């Protein structure tokens, strides 16, 4: 049986999509979903126990999805969300199912000024374990296009969900992901975010709501190019005791602006939370604003944060040059090192893939 995804992407688009982690051969993936503008180009699960469907199809097929999940994560936060969406995926990992190979998806912008607005729902049922890698990218021709991605995650009792999102836009694209993860008792939610290419304007503040004994980790790597604004944060709300969370970010400004937010909000006792934000400003014109926030009214919590922003030090450059490395190469090495894929919570295979993607991206970007 051939697993290869049939598609009609031209070479350029295909290369781009590959660089957001999509494996067209599906050899290392357990399920796939591809949407271009509003068209669902592909969706297929290769394993029992994983459902992957266009959201509209899933809502038609299972009315209970609407009752149980649709809009419910936002409701938990009393937050409004745009309703006029077209497409998006429904992914469900069935109870107790442990999936080794990642599930993959790609949301692609193809046409000029197109406004893509999708609504995704991801459910990891009780005791399930899975990794999802999702790429968002745009074709060269998609000038001034717009992407809105609404994602609702439901990590049910004792489930583990690891979600990695790689963005690869163009410098005139505006992007607005909105995500909320509801994590039930004993569940773990991991979010990894990588954006190393230009994007005109991106704003996101994904939020996880944790029940008793849950864990959440948000890690992000971002590089801001001239005339780009990245306003990126992560928020964890602790509703019950015994939960822990970590937010880690690395932001590089190559002339653009980064606002790196982090918000840890304990509405219960017995919480452990840490926030770490490091920024590197490479050019004179760049700007990084770190806004770490810790909130609680309980005494019995262990919450901390560290934030550090700096430029590349002369000592570091001298050090590498004294080892025979020319100045420009030394600078790229330091930046490449700073954008450290090891801070992401990824299984070994995926970490290697992402490391390679970062190499390729930063090689051309620096």
């Amino acid at each position, binding site marked *: 049986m051939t697993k290869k995804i049939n598609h009609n992407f031209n070479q350029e688009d295909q290369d781009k999509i590959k660089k957001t982690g999509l494996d067209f051969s599906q050899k290392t993936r357990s399920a796939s979903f591809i949407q271009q503008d509003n068209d669902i180009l592909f969706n297929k699960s290769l394993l029992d126990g994983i459902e992957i469907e266009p959201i509209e199809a899933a809502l038609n097929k299972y009315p209970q999805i609407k009752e149980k999940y649709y809009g419910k994560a936002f409701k938990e936060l009393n937050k409004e969300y745009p309703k006029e969406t077209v497409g998006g995926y429904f992914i469900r990992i069935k109870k107790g199912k442990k999936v080794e190979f990642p599930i993959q998806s790609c949301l692609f912008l193809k046409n000029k000024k197109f406004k893509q607005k999708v609504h995704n729902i991801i459910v990891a049922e009780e005791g399930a374990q899975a990794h999802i890698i999702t790429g968002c990218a745009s074709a060269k021709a998609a000038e001034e296009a717009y992407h809105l991605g609404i994602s609702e995650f439901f990590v049910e009792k004792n489930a583990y969900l690891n979600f990695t999102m790689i963005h690869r836009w163009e410098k005139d694209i505006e992007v607005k992901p909105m995500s909320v993860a509801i994590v039930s008792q004993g569940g773990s939610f991991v979010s990894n975010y990588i954006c190393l290419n230009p994007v005109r304007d991106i704003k996101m503040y994904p939020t996880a709501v944790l029940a008793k004994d849950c864990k959440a980790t948000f890690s992000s790597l971002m590089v801001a190019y001239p005339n780009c604004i990245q306003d990126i944060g992560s928020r964890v709300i602790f509703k019950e005791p015994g939960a822990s969370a970590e937010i880690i970010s690395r932001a590089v400004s190559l002339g653009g602006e980064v606002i790196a937010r982090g918000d840890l909000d304990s509405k219960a006792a017995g919480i452990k939370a840490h926030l770490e934000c490091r920024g590197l400003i490479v050019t004179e014109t760049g700007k990084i604003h770190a806004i770490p926030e810790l909130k609680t009214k309980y005494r019995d919590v262990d919450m901390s944060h560290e934030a550090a922003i700096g430029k590349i030090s*002369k000592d570091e450059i*001298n050090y*590498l040059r*004294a080892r*025979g490395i020319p100045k420009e190469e030394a600078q790229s090495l330091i930046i490449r090192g700073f954008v450290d894929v090891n801070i992401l919570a990824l299984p070994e295979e995926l970490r290697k893939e992402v490391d390679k993607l970062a190499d390729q991206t930063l090689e051309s970007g620096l």
Partner: protein
Amino acid sequence: METILKIRNLTVEVEGKAILRNLDLDIAKNQNLILFGPNGSGKSTLIGAIMGFENYKVTSGTIEFSGKNIIGLTPDQRARLGIGVMFQHPPKIRGIQLKQFIELLSDKSNNSKEKDSLVETLNLSYLLDRDLNVDLSGGEIKRSELFQVLVQRPKLLLLDEPESGVDLENIALMGKALNSYLKRHKLSALIISHTGYILEYIKTKYACVMLEGKVCCHDNPTKIFSEIKSVGYERCKDCRCRSGIKK
């Protein structure tokens, strides 16, 4: 005897202040020179000037390496000519693992064979996955530094206090590795020492003392060191026994 490094009349300013003054120094091929001197006398500045770091401004004099004046060359050009330095206080570089960095250096110097045996002799295998100088102990930093500079395979090694902050066991380990490397490849080294422990492992007849930015004494290392041990650098100040390296 052929010199590998020849410094004449060197004056170096740091932030407008002269730190080295009309300094002369020679290092012969296949020979090691130990440089003693109190804190702040300008030893690290000398190394910075030989490497050509920007903040060390040479206002007079020449530095010849293998017969070629290297003033005006960038630090990386000097390194590629064959000058290798082991830093006294190397900076932390996050996200670059020792392993990756050594790959890069050994590719550049075509020196991949020795890599593995050096990892063994310097007891570094457990540090290969660690970021450069991040959260390492004093001894670990120095061993990693020595490893890097040896993989570079320089013709001249500049070692800035290789034994400071290192326990005796690790000094022995490094001293032996260094000594055998220097001998095997017939290299030259300038070794800055504060404690003198390194003398046990690096056999050489040549040492000098730096005082207030000048090299002021050339003699047998053990002799100078026992003097320093008994009376400190006080005596050096009066004894301006200048002579050039004894040939």
